[in-house]
């Protein structure tokens, strides 16, 4: 089975966020870029499938600038991916997810695949656009947010569930397929030191995105981020003084009704 997994370098979740000087993006100075969140789940899921299906190969694919994109591909190789493709992002191209999808779909077109795994959404922009847009460009079905994904060899199909409001929608689907992973393993594997060293010797296939659509420059087609700001700081709770639990409850309910107006 040929498995492709789409991964995006995102700022370490512990990063202290600061807007850049223009106030249009995150100030990336000193940011540590990591493989995390649902993308980490997508890699873990791909490796679990590979272990379950003899003869499988996992290729990690990432679109982005140097050096962070190459670095997270290295970390995916260290976790057990067999190969990696780096689609280099032109220096002044915007990080728009619809553009990323276009570049990634072009890269996927040139490799055989039975399954493409992505995260349900990236931890930074939280767009949730890339997987479904890649699927449309490749002309294959897409499902998400997916949990509990398995391969049913006898029936030649995947089984999984979509996590929707109110429960799990059980599904079966034949390859080829794009899935967006929601499942979070609380303990995804970590790389062993010897594999980190081995991963350094694997050659990463580098492709340059040759066909950016006209007008692709600092602004993405159709949308651009006019402002990136931090929400007003929470100033700390208004603490409720009380003598009895009943008094605390009455005061809180009054504040929620009259001040916050969020009590239904």
């Amino acid at each position, binding site marked *: 089975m040929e498995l492709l997994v789409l991964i995006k370098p995102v700022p370490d979740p512990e990063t202290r966020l600061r807007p850049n000087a223009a106030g249009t993006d995150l100030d990336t100075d000193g940011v540590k870029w990591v493989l995390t969140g649902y993308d980490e789940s997508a890699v873990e899921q791909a490796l679990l499938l590979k272990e379950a299906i003899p003869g499988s190969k996992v290729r990690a694919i990432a679109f982005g600038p140097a050096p962070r994109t190459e670095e997270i591909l290295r970390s995916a190789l260290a976790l057990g991916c067999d190969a990696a493709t780096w689609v280099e992002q032109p220096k002044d191209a915007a990080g728009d997810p619809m553009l990323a999808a276009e570049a990634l779909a072009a890269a996927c077109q040139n490799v055989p695949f039975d399954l493409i795994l992505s995260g349900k959404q990236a931890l930074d922009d939280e767009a949730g656009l890339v997987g479904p847009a890649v699927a449309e460009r490749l002309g294959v079905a897409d499902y998400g947010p997916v949990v509990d994904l398995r391969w049913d060899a006898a029936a030649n199909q995947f089984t999984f569930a979509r996590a929707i409001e109110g429960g799990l929608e059980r599904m*079966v689907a034949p390859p080829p397929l794009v899935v967006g992973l929601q499942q979070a393993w609380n303990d995804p594997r970590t790389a062993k030191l010897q594999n980190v060293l081995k991963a350094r010797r694997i050659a990463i296939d580098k492709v340059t995105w040759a066909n950016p659509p006209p007008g692709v420059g600092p602004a993405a087609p159709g949308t651009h981020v006019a402002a990136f700001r931090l929400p007003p700081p929470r100033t700390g709770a208004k603490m409720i003084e009380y003598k009895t639990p009943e008094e605390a409850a009455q005061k809180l309910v009054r504040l929620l009704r009259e001040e*916050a107006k969020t009590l239904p």
Partner: protein
Amino acid sequence: MTGPVFVIVELRNGAPVRSSLEALGAGRRLAGPPGTTPVIALLLGSAVESAAAHVAERGADQVLTIVDPRFDSFQAAVWSAAITALAQELGVIAVLLAGTAHGRQLVGRLAARWGAAAVTGIADISISNDGAMLAVRPVFSGRALQEVRVDAPRVVLGLRPNAFPPPEPSGSKAPVLAHATPELGKLPALGHVSGFETAQSASGPDLSEATVIVSGGRGLKGPENFRMLDELAASLGGAVGASRAVTDSGWKPAALQIGQTGRTVSPQLYIAIGISGAIQHLVGMISSRTIVAINSDPGAPIFKVADYGIVGDLFQIVPALTSEVRRVRGS
């Protein structure tokens, strides 16, 4: 703006989901008062009649139905083919989708097919002085905000749940028209739904749709004490969530975990009970409108992000709060 706005209405058990009604409200806000830019509600599936009558009284200028069993189960490939064809036929300029699991899955696929721009997770929307659309969307788990300007002739907009009020019944009734299924073109090999498992906490609304979430942590001391939270949640018409300390101990299923490795929620009201407020928990709930914390430790970090805090023993405060809520809500 020149051209109608589509609002795709998602149904569950034959009725429109709340997030789709919110999308109607957002569509109305975008289009301006009735009689200016038309808002068209679109319903797809075999049993859409009563839902169509319902939305006809809630802010739409027109309701279109495509009665076809191929839309009874959600398939992004099929839905995006149909909506694209129809949007092209009617010269639509914007498609609004609810912040549901299916709605979120449809945005990217539809935008790629229709050749449109796409913005998701929208918490607020407005038109700037020069006529461009401005969408505000929380990013980084609500720790930052993006203001996205849309200059495209066509756009697909995905909304955040609980961000827009659903319209009240208007008293007038928009016309309901049936439309034939458009040409879908070549479709990929599709999967199909083989069953449905109701989530374990099926009594209240789902976490992602709940307007109130009552969330419990290790301070609850044991699974049996979550009854107290169930009662408080029921009195508020809300849902129960949990910290990872609780789901890791098996007191509650993992599906109820809120935070970095669980769900991200943004209700109107989030009540954190016996939760310390670790950063991995905060990223999952920080964009809630109002946050209340009940904790016996005045130094608990949760009080730094809460709007209202009660320092005290949850075993005394929570039952008192439930009685008070029941009293004022008359239930």
